[in-house]
């Protein structure tokens, strides 16, 4: 079974630029999550999708971050404009029925200069 795929793996941008990350969950997983992991900390949930609907985005900085999951499969997370403090690893995860276990992708390491 293929795991969660993410791209790109690394991205370096300057502040005020825009960036987008892509995630393809495990086949059949209805729930998809985006997390932000700042160096030295645990991951923080940004947004949770169930199929193509948003379940929770209470920790997503909506003035600059947006996410979508068209057709209930792939998802993109966008930052526009980026700030220095957005430097982190962005992790995508997916889960099946009742979210009993989340499986994480390899992450995208973002550096904002």
């Amino acid at each position, binding site marked *: 079974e293929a795991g969660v795929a993410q791209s790109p793996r690394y991205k370096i941008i300057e502040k005020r630029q825009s960036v987008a990350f892509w995630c393809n969950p495990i086949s059949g997983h209805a729930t998809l999550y985006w997390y932000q992991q700042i160096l030295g900390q645990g991951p923080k*949930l940004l947004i949770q999708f169930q199929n193509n609907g948003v379940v*929770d985005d209470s920790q997503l900085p909506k003035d600059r971050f947006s996410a979508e999951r068209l057709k209930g499969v792939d998802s993109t997370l966008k930052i526009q404009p980026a700030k220095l403090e957005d430097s982190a690893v962005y992790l995508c995860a997916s889960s099946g029925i009742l979210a009993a276990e989340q499986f*994480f992708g390899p992450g995208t390491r973002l550096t904002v200069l």
Partner: protein
Amino acid sequence: ELKVEQNPLFLSMQEGKNYTIYCNYSTTSDRLYWYRQDPGKSLESLFVLLSNGAVKQEGRLMASLDTKARLSTLHITAAVHDLSATYFCAVDPYLALGGTSYGKLTFGQGTILTVHP
């Protein structure tokens, strides 16, 4: 706001020794997860604990959950160098959210484990 606290945050062990990592959390929950993260890598699921008193073991690692004490432990037996990594616990507060909204995990700060020869 749910708080998840791990201790210790840093753990330096000798090979062959035993130790326990503690994960305390501040809300009612009976769903707790342990993950392992190697440097520069993503999170690998170790244990899924879904009820009070749950105990799971895999190799030299054993995890348990006490929902009344709001405490989970990850016990390491006879540590080996390959166990060196960062270990995270994560709590699903679905009970405090009404019992139907799953998956909004809150992670602890992580415990950096280094096993020395």
